[in-house]
């Protein structure tokens, strides 16, 4: 008889429960409640017709660890544990991805030797020992234990728990025998109704776009063609949804391609497509003189040449909106979703490196939270954990990253996930970066099953977070299903079993098949063949679902059996779902009935958008801050600041050496305490050629001028890559724009014209800098609606660009790190320091204002970067560190921390030559600078290479563990390196409640 059984597993009472312990800390630190202790119980609800004996064996032999744990079946294990006052049980809502339940189901069928329709669901129980009222426990639930969008909670006081015999079974019923419905939508309605149809379905279409869509159905030839395939004259919901997805800002980048009327002072200009003019435009100008570009802006990721046998594919994505609603699910799907881009580029690449850059609100924020806003600290913990699970479980090392804290990110965090793949340049003679889908090729979908998860992700992320944000947009990743699929795909690729591949990300099958159909000239897709997680999906939902871990391939009919057999052998789901055609139509059927029949040329056509931009530079007073503190205190406060301090507690949770190819990891020095400017991977066994990954991000400068913000972040990314040993003449860039809504709306976005002008200026800053450096953009992404608006409460992110650099390191044995190496080494500052401290860390911390932001002196910097690389090549630098936030002061401290050594810094020459004050010299963030140390024996060679470029001696490395800053004889500051290190390492560990050691 089919029934439910509950298996409860807990850690034995005499053993520690680290997870319970951490939960107790979270309750105390977040809500201030006193808690004696928390213990956790894992609950497996088994729905099966197995015998009691079989259930018992499953519990005792498989689920329960005999050394650590104990179990009970259909009785509460909590009664065998130390006393508690409250019990809370958290379960996933029906349909939400339950990885543990899924694995348990699989293992249960291994144990019984057959798939017998059993299903297992996981829940987690928290047994809380604390004197609390029910309302307080409910608050613990809401703020710590569960997320109401994806989970449900039951709470019992101890007496109820004992009286009821623990928690009851939570039954789970799916609709059986559902017959999929398609509806026709009458768009011959007044404008207001038309717009409300878009809003109610989260289509994110404008009135003009709705009218454009309607106009298609007014064409006689269209109506005739529709009748021939059994459709009526009205559009179906499938068609409307597919159109909205294809046209979404997320997929179409309408703002980046709009015609913009830009005004600045009395000047007016028209910009036709920011993307084509400035981003691709920059690359086209550079491509004439660089020969390492293989595939740019064409595919899911940019592809560059690594050596004569391999190419590298690199992509950085954002997953901001989902991470705002469910930080864990949003970030894990962000990283595993980004992975599918390089994996689905050309014929597919194998993933070898991750980079993650995160922007959060102030994690120490106090006060009431507005609706649908999570506390920034909770957002951070969830996002960090999601990326940890996504990266670590897929076995991809996270070798670089950054974290930025600013209040503007409390409405939507920014979660940038980057992924690098490697691919042989040719596979059995076929160039690996070329994909094609031919008419007759079979559409094969592989990976996970389709559910209602992620529906409307593409359109939802094209709007601000609001009360009507769809809950289905939230989903949880399943890294192992993806890992199995991608492993299988590499095998299939090497046998050339398919001709084209792309991922199912935003827009699901609608997007993947719709895009590949353009390669062949049409597609015929049969939705009833889709593997579903559960019945109850309508055709438009199957088409639009963004259920994760899926790829779509074009498999030649002759290879189909081999492909499906390989997938079966690897335990990976793969199903043929139709074929590519040359009909010119995106033709979708369900159970033999046509549900969508759209001309590809119409579906993918562009509706021109015209926007206004107006630049009024902010007027900022010039006020240098007065700290009123000894310089030592300023140094310590700076190195402890959340935007400067060590990211060690996050870095250590990310596997940064799996794959065995990471030669520069994010933590450097003998004690792994120092921060690295970039990560380096040597991906080919037996070869010393490598590549560096580095990042540039500084949203603070946007407060002054986004042109210079952009120029600085391009410069910073390049500078970081060069710093560790990348060749400045072999660097490629990715741009990720995260903007507040820049489209003017008198009610919603009255400052839209200004924000759009900021965008225009930023794009120009990227263009001018990249062209001057000869560093092409190879891929990128823009996310344009990073706002939160509920009622009167609006939060918009600072205009933010992440520039990611990937640069070739010709010989990794020559790499340079930022930590000081030997006492007695000479210290030099390369590059000019200027009085331009607006929005510098120093000004921000101590209340200074200025309209002067660092300017990038492109020609001078490029010369310096080439010289720096020559110094690296000749092995003359013992250490090299880029100067960025916090300027010379922070760079010196970081090099001391990494090396566990001191330094005697004398600023007199620097002050004399620059005419700056001590504070300006120490804290200016002028671009294009490095601080280096070298063996005094090498000084002569050093100077012969540096020549006329700006260089100034700033002191020597010392062995006495003190950072001494002087001006001639006058001591300005003296700090113990041990103390600086403690401050640097402690801030984030304390915030996250983790042991520093």
């Amino acid at each position, binding site marked *: 008889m089919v029934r439910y059984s509950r298996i409860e597993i807990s850690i034995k009472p005499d053993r520690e429960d680290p997870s319970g312990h951490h939960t107790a800390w979270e309750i105390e630190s977040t809500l201030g409640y006193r808690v004696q202790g928390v213990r956790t119980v894992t609950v497996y609800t088994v729905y099966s017709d197995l015998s009691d004996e079989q259930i018992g064996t499953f519990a005792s032999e498989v689920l329960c660890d*005999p050394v650590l744990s104990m179990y009970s079946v259909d009785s509460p294990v909590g009664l065998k544990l130390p006393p508690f006052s409250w019990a809370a049980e958290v379960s996933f809502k029906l349909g939400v991805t339950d990885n543990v339940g899924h694995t348990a189901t699989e293992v249960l069928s291994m144990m019984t030797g057959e798939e017998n329709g059993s299903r297992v669901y996981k829940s987690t129980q928290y047994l809380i020992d604390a004197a609390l009222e029910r309302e307080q426990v409910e608050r613990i639930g809401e703020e710590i234990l569960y997320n109401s969008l994806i989970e449900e909670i039951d709470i019992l006081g101890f007496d109820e728990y004992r009286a009821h015999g623990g928690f009851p079974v939570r039954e789970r019923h799916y609709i059986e025998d559902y017959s999929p419905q398609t509806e026709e939508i009458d768009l011959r309605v007044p404008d207001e109704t038309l717009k409300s149809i878009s809003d109610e379905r989260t289509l994110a279409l404008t009135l003009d776009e709705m009218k454009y869509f309607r106009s298609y159905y007014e064409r006689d030839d269209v109506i005739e063609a529709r009748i021939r395939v059994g459709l009526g004259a009205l559009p179906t919901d499938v068609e409307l949804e597919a159109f909205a997805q294809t046209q979404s800002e997320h997929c179409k980048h309408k703002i980046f391609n709009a015609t913009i009327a830009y005004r600045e002072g009395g000047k007016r200009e028209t910009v036709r497509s920011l993307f084509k003019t400035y981003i691709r435009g920059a690359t086209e100008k550079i491509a004439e003189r660089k020969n390492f570009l293989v595939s740019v802006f064409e595919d899911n990721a940019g592809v560059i040449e690594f050596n004569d046998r391999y190419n590298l594919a690199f992509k950085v994505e954002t997953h901001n909106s989902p991470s705002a609603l469910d930080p864990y699910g949003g970030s894990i799907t962000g990283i595993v979703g980004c992975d599918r881009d390089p994996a689905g580029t050309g014929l597919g690449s194998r993933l070898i490196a991750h980079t993650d850059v995160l922007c959060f609100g102030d994690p120490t924020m106090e006060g009431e939270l507005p609706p649908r806003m999570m506390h920034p600290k909770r957002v951070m913990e969830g996002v960090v954990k999601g990326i940890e699970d996504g990266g670590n479980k897929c076995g991809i090392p996270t070798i670089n990253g950054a974290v930025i804290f600013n209040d503007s990110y409390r409405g939507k965090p920014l979660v940038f996930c980057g992924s690098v793949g490697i691919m042989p340049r040719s596979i059995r003679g076929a160039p690996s970066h070329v994909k094609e889908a031919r008419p007759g090729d079979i559409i094969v979908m592989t990976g996970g099953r389709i559910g209602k998860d992620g529906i409307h992700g593409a359109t939802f992320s094209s709007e601000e977070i609001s009360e009507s944000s769809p809950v289905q947009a939230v989903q949880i990743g399943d890294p192992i299903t993806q890992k199995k699929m991608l492993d299988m795909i590499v095998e299939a690729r090497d046998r050339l079993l398919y001709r084209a591949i792309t991922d199912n990300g935003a827009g699901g099958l609608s997007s993947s098949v719709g895009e590949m159909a353009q390669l062949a000239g049409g597609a015929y897709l049969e939705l009833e063949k889709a593997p579903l997680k559960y019945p109850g999906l309508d055709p438009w939902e199957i088409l639009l679902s963004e259920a994760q871990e899926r790829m779509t391939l074009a498999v030649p009919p002759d290879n189909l059996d081999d492909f499906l057999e390989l997938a079966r052998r690897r335990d990976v789901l793969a199903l043929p779902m139709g074929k590519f055609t040359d009909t010119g139509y995106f033709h979708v059927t369900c159970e033999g009935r046509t549900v969508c029949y759209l001309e590809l040329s119409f579906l993918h056509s562009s509706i021109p958008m015209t926007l206004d931009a107006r630049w009024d530079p902010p007027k900022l007073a010039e006020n240098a801050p007065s700290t009123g503190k000894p310089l030592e205190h300023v140094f310590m406060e700076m190195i402890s600041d959340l935007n400067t301090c060590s990211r060690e507690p996050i870095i250590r949770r990310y596997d940064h050496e799996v794959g065995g190819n990471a030669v520069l990891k994010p933590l450097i020095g003998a004690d*792994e305490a120092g921060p690295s400017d970039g990560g380096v991977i040597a991906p080919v066994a037996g070869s010393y050629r490598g590549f560096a990954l580095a990042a540039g991000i500084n949203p603070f400068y946007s407060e002054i001028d986004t042109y210079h913000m952009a120029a600085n972040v391009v410069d910073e990314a390049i500078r970081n890559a060069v710093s560790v040993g990348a060749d400045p003449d072999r660097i490629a860039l990715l741009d990720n724009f995260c903007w507040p809504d820049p489209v003017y709306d008198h009610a919603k976005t009255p400052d839209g014209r200004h924000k759009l002008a900021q965008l225009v200026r930023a794009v120009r800053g990227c263009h001018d800098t990249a062209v001057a450096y000869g560093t092409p953009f190879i891929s990128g992404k823009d996310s344009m609606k990073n706002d939160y608006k509920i009622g009167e409460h609006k939060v918009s992110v600072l205009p933010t660009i992440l520039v990611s650099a990937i640069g070739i390191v010709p010989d990794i044995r020559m790499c340079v790190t930022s930590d000081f190496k030997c006492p007695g080494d000479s210290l030099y500052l390369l590059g000019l320091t200027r009085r331009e401290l607006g929005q510098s860390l120093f000004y921000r911390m101590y209340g200074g204002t200025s309209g002067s932001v660092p300017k990038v002196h492109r020609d001078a910097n490029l010369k310096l970067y080439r010289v720096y690389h020559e110094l690296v090549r000749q092995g003359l630098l013992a250490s090299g560190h880029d100067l960025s936030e916090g300027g010379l002061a922070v760079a010196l401290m970081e090099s001391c921390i990494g090396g566990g050594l001191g330094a005697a810094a004398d600023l007199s020459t620097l002050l004399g030559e620059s005419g700056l004050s001590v504070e300006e010299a120490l804290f200016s963030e002028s671009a294009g600078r490095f601080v280096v140390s070298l*063996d005094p024996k090498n000084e002569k060679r050093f100077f012969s290479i540096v020549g006329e470029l700006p260089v100034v001696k700033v002191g020597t490395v010392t062995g006495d563990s003190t950072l001494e800053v002087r001006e001639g004889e006058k001591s300005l500051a003296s700090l113990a390196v041990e103390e600086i290190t403690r401050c640097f390492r402690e801030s984030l560990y304390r915030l996250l409640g983790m042991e520093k050691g």
Partner: protein
Amino acid sequence: MAKPRALILTGYGINCDYETTHACDTVGFKAYRLHLNDVLVKPEGLFDYRLVVFPGGFSYGDDLGSGVAYSSKIRFSRSENGGRLYETFMEYVERDGLVLGICNGFQILVRLGILPAIENSYGEQQVTLAPNREGYFINRWVELVTQQDNPSIFTRGLGRIRLPVRHGEGRLLVPDEELLQGLEQNRHVCIRYCDREGKPTQSFPQNPNGSQNAIAGICDPTGRVFGLMPHPEAAMTLYHFPDWTGMRERANRCGEELPTKGDGHAIFRNAFEYAS
């Protein structure tokens, strides 16, 4: 003479298979990466190899506890001709086969009861690798000291070494004092986390997970099956060390000797020497 063959298992979330294959090749093996399902088709194929490695990774996402699902797969699965992989595997061990389990691979061997097999109780899970005492995944280089006179062929000649750990569940726990004594007295313990002086330690982070008696790696009674939480395959060359640029610099200045190999190399090399 033909090179001895090494089998590196993969599939279901094993993810250190490429570098482990390379490590085996580097020391002299002819190494093959094989999906578990390809081994299942013909388990007798195991006898063609002198070394079988269960590499690191996140098999089945650690979903039911690390190694639980993968070991269940080995325990319960039957090959196409009906034989159990588990039994063939035990026969392989008896026939002088070498087995190395690293991190997730170690967890799998422990769940299968192939390690430690105190008093030859193969098949019975006697110890466990519990969640780290600090409660989270950790990537860190640790110092290890080798237990002298341990029978493992893998740690022969090793003294103090440095390797990275990268795990969330590496805390070796023993159910009771009696088994702990059995583990120690029967010389199952091969390597321990230690402090700067080389003394085994319970302090975090030198002992990164809170393992009892600072145990980082153990072997079976024959010494031919060895499992450890740290990653020797990630410490094969100089360039794997986290501070190799400092080592290089100091070697250039004061003639300090610069190693060309990482400390993991000797572990694979020992296996090769035994196998050939």
